[in-house]
């Protein structure tokens, strides 16, 4: 076991896969010589050489186009989009090309590629470097969407993403980069579409993702002291979406709360909630509840940004409404 940061786990995950499979290449802005602006990819350039780990121009369409074309022609590439906000600059390649190529060609084209990106708020970077856009990706048929909440899962899910034969949008939550965990040595490989129980409980089901998982767990611990036993589900991937785990939990608790970092409208929380109210309506004993960032761009000032994103304190307050409902 070694104490590993989420940031370091990214580098270890990429290295694990590059060492295993010579078809894995990695490109992006400042990811090679400089080791990445979040220092996630330090040492990869030295270890795997300048051909397999390569800096690009500031050309997000060229970067995402490059991994798409390369995946069509024998590589299993990884690209970094530095901040997930920049997906907007290459959304055509991601949403119209990568996501649709297999279907449009009836399976002739297979795209084993991963696009990693630093997602979400909390760093006081303002509205153009902070948004959580997991719901953008989830809304596009043909993309798998992964968002780990801890260092171990970064490695396991990154490995699963690289090994998947489908395009994966892999979102690393910025606010988690400094978080630490004891992670076993050796290869770690997970499966996509398997949620985990971050905390078992019997009174309320709380479904969370990425940075919202530790906050939900913290809230659950507080609520435990107040007699509310919360089950926290870490979704880990949005596509595939592990509804089996969610529905099983709701059958037990009869109460559903989702905690999303993304802005209010059309988030994954709405999707999960709607599936539950369609398929498990009679299991529910109280109104469903979605906790999200308000439907606003994120502000830069620290005091405002902290107010915007769901905190463990707001999660506690909100859950109490449902638990007593």
């Amino acid at each position: 076991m070694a104490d590993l940061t989420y940031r370091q786990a990214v580098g270890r995950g990429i290295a694990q896969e590059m060492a295993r499979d010579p078809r894995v290449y990695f490109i992006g802005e400042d990811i090679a010589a400089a080791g990445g602006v979040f220092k996630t990819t330090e040492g990869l350039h030295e270890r795997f050489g300048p051909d397999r780990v390569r800096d690009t121009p500031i050309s997000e369409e060229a970067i995402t186009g490059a991994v798409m074309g390369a995946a069509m022609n024998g590589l299993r590439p990884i690209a970094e989009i530095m901040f997930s906000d920049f997906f907007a600059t290459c959304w055509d390649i991601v949403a119209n090309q990568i996501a649709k190529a297999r279907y449009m060609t009836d399976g002739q084209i297979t795209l084993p590629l991963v696009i990693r990106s630093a997602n979400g708020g909390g760093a006081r970077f303002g509205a153009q470097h902070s948004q959580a856009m997991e719901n953008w990706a989830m809304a596009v048929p043909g993309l798998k969407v992964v968002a780990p909440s801890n260092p171990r899962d970064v490695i396991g899910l990154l490995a699963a993403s690289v090994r998947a034969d489908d395009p994966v949008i892999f979102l690393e939550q910025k606010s988690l980069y400094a978080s630490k965990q004891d992670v076993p040595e050796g290869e770690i490989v997970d499966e996509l579409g398997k949620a985990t129980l971050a905390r078992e409980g019997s009174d309320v089901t709380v479904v969370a993702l990425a940075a919202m998982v530790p906050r939900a767990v913290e809230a659950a611990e507080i609520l435990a002291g107040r007699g509310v036993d919360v089950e926290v589900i870490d979704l880990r991937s949005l596509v595939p979406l592990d509804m089996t785990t969610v529905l099983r939990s709701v059958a037990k608790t009869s109460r559903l709360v989702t905690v999303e970092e993304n802005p209010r409208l059309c988030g994954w929380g709405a999707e999960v909630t709607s599936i539950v109210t369609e398929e498990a309506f009679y299991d529910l004993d109280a109104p469903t509840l979605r906790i999200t960032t308000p439907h606003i761009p994120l502000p830069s000032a620290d005091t405002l940004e902290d107010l915007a994103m769901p905190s463990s304190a707001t999660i506690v307050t909100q859950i109490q409404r449902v638990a007593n409902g």
Partner: protein
Amino acid sequence: MTSATDSSAIGLPVPTERLLELYRMMLDARLFEEKAHKLFFEGLVKGTSHLALGQEAVAAGFAAAMRPDDLTFCTYRGHTHTLLRGADMAALMAELLGRATGCCGGKGGSMHLTDVAVGAMGSYAIVGAHLPIATGAAWAAQARGSGQVVVVFFGDGATNIGAFHEALNFAAVWKLPVVFVCENNLYMEYTPIGSVTAVPNPAADRAATYGLDGIIIDGNDVEAVYAAAVEALAHARSGDGPLLIEAKTYRHGGHSRADPGTYRPDEEVKAWLDRDPIPAFRSRLEAEGVESATLAEIEAASSAAVDAATEDARNAPFPDPATLETQVWADGGSRWRT
């Protein structure tokens, strides 16, 4: 501006056999698309179709010069490019008609013809988007040392979109084996390219921005295209990096579907119809001593092939409804939940 046509480099004169092959290719493309047009008006080709009637020499010249493992990327105006890489004609026609036997099972349609088995890596319907993708395929060729060259075709209008710029710079900096071929047919949909572009030659005049030579070729002269293609492929294959070629050509009809193309001056249309690449090349072949009977044989064969493909497609079944939800994922299905 330099010309890519250096006859000594490609061992000109081109052998007669190859010339006849070029003739056959152009004819196949022409007759295939004329039939598609007819079927559109019969209501059998649904949605839309963008014909390259008049532009066949570009597709033929390049396809003839490519190695089987080279890769082609083209646009929604891509029937011809896909066909001439060797895709099965009946499968293409069936795709236009939305049939189960279509090359994409009916999921792609006219704008998305693809046949990966012959290196036709797809027809892309968002202007310019395939340039970065083709660049990526060339990166993989370089990385794997496969010796493949990627050829990507696009219109004059595509030169004003950001993806063009990003792809060209990227390919140039990484010295990737990709040949960018702009088919300048003077129009975007209905708007003349000259009215919205800062330079007269939308591709060639921009080559210097990527440290490349601006190459202009006569896209209606199939021999010139073939010669340029041979040279460009050799250049790219040898590791000398990308090339940007602007082929001057013209579409005989409108942009798509039922567009009659009336926004174009009559004299312009007439002048270009007079330069139709097929009869011009036919005359040249005759002048070079090819027997009329040989040409007539090719023509009959093309015509018969198109008829057979059409018959096949007309009789093909519609897609099994179950296929609606297949092939979103590599496991063949579309399940997004576990």
